[in-house]
């Protein structure tokens, strides 16, 4: 298991290197001169040479890369051109909101998807199965930002009630209120993923339920719940966990939209502001941070296979 973990950890190195190259290329890949554009359209000062120096664009490419990576390794992800604050300070302040929103969405998707998916598989081709599958297809087709807009607009028009937007409550002020304000956005974000996970759970369960060892468990006279949960679900879990882990980029991407609609001060709204102001150091910093987060979550998913499947521990 330790060797497996180490091997997996080593594989991260080339990915990290390429991710850093991508992020480094963001400002440099722009057609035309980014500095001229920033000065003309976004009034980032008047001196092109100064801005070039600030962005580190005045030195040879290889040197620029090494200086930038050196800074990143020391925790310097760059400084906002707009607020002059280090990007990492803002990321640290906003990340907990995005993380809570993402985790809450994952919990909601699982609470909906796992039981519905398992039931749909156990009761295959019944009306319940068709209802579950229709729900999944519907969830996949309805854009989450539309759902969120409807949640804001419809109750406000017909019942004069609207979710509180723009009155953000911090965790320290009121932990209950902090989580409560994230529930609606998390439902909107989680429901789409519930569709994906439900279909996956149903498919995997159907496959596993047809296996010989499950038939043996039935034949031995084990209780239905035990067979489904202990024998079938555990073996169906690996691909499901892969799907959930692989959806991390979706949750972070989706939180951009949700934070925008519900006025939440998370990383999504932060990067959206940076993108509208072409604040490139911040755009770079958030991209790098999110990519690192995704690499970490993929790593955790891979390591969790060992816990789920004892065979992998001994390989």
């Amino acid at each position, binding site marked *: 298991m330790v060797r497996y973990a180490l091997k997996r950890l080593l594989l991260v190195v080339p990915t990290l290197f390429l991710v850093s190259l*991508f992020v480094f290329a963001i400002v440099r890949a722009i057609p035309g001169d980014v500095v001229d554009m920033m000065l003309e359209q976004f009034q980032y000062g008047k001196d092109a040479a100064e801005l070039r120096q600030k962005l580190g664009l005045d030195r040879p490419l290889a040197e620029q890369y090494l200086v930038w990576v050196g800074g990143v390794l020391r925790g310097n992800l760059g400084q906002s051109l707009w607020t002059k604050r280090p990007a990492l300070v803002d990321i640290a302040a906003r990340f907990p909101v995005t993380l809570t929103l993402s985790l809450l969405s994952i919990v909601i998707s699982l609470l909906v998807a796992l039981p519905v998916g398992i039931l749909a598989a156990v009761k295959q081709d019944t009306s319940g199965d068709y209802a579950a599958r229709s729900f999944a297809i519907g969830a996949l*087709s309805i854009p989450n930002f539309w759902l969120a*807009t409807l949640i804001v*607009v419809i109750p406000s028009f017909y019942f004069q009630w609207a979710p509180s937007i723009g009155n953000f409550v911090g965790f320290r002020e009121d932990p209950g209120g902090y989580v409560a304000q994230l529930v609606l956005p998390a439902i909107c974000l989680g429901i789409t993923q519930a569709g994906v996970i439900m279909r996956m759970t149903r498919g995997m369960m159907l496959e596993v339920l047809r296996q010989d060892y499950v038939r043996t468990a039935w034949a031995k006279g084990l209780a239905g719940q035990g067979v489904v949960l202990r024998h079938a679900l555990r073996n169906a879990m690996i691909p499901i966990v892969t799907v959930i882990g692989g959806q991390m980029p979706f949750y972070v991407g989706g939180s951009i939209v949700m934070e925008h609609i519900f006025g939440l001060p998370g990383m999504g709204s932060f990067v959206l502001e940076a993108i509208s102001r072409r604040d490139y150091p911040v755009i770079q910093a958030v991209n790098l941070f999110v990519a690192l987060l995704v690499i970490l979550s993929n790593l955790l998913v891979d390591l969790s296979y060992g816990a789920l499947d004892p065979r992998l521990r001994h390989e």
Partner: protein
Amino acid sequence: MAPWTRASGMSKGAFGVLLRRKPLGALGGVLLLVMVGLAFFGGWVAPYGYDDADVFSRLRPASGSHWLGTDNLGRDLLSRIIYGARVSMAVGFGGVALGLAGATLVGLLSGYFGGRVDILVQRVVDAFMCFPLLLVALTIMALLGPGLVNVILTLGLVLAVRDSRVIRSAVLTVKTNLYVESARALGAGHGAMIVRHIFPNIVAPIIILATVNLGAVILIEAALSFLGFGVPPPHPSWGGMLSGAGLVHMLRAPWLALWPGVALSLAVFGANMLGDALRDVLDPRLRGTE
């Protein structure tokens, strides 16, 4: 022959087969056709122009003269939704075509040649997949600036990288077939191998990817326009019509928030249903599990 190509019988009355075996998929196909029809002939179908403003009938609910009501500038909502199909379909089909062309090229080369090329290409794909789709799309749009062509280019690029992996795995499967080895033994060059033996046998996964991705691309375009980074006004796009800037008006006229979303969901639903049905029909591993 690769198992996928057995489904080439689909071409004989393909729609009839789809209708009999997958009625929901056929419904999806019809929905998509209607959307494409609206995109092409919207000018004839729409009762008003997309920018015809009538200041005396602003934020009016549905009526005989405006079936779905009007927006804050007095523009007919139905007409704007009909014209909005153009953006969604152009970006949907354009992005998917561009993405699949790129993905096929990269996937074919990476899968066929294997070795160092493959390792390098796949690590690049790995790294690219670490970035959320919407964040990459937003970042590229921030570099290129808003506009229809830029949205298509951006989504095409993103898809090309992601889908190349699926194409590559299809190539790897086809490569192991006996007929490929025979062709090589007969002295076929790389070009002939790729064009005559490998490519025709990965057409089915390409078709499946196209329909599955169509819904996703339409959704991302809508999200980009919703956030103000897609196709700029006054040309209507469904995502743009739902955008936060119009929220104040939506609170007074909820139909503004309702109908563009219905159109968007129907288009995505159509694409997803058709994609699902085609996958079931064309992918033999899933046959019998319907």
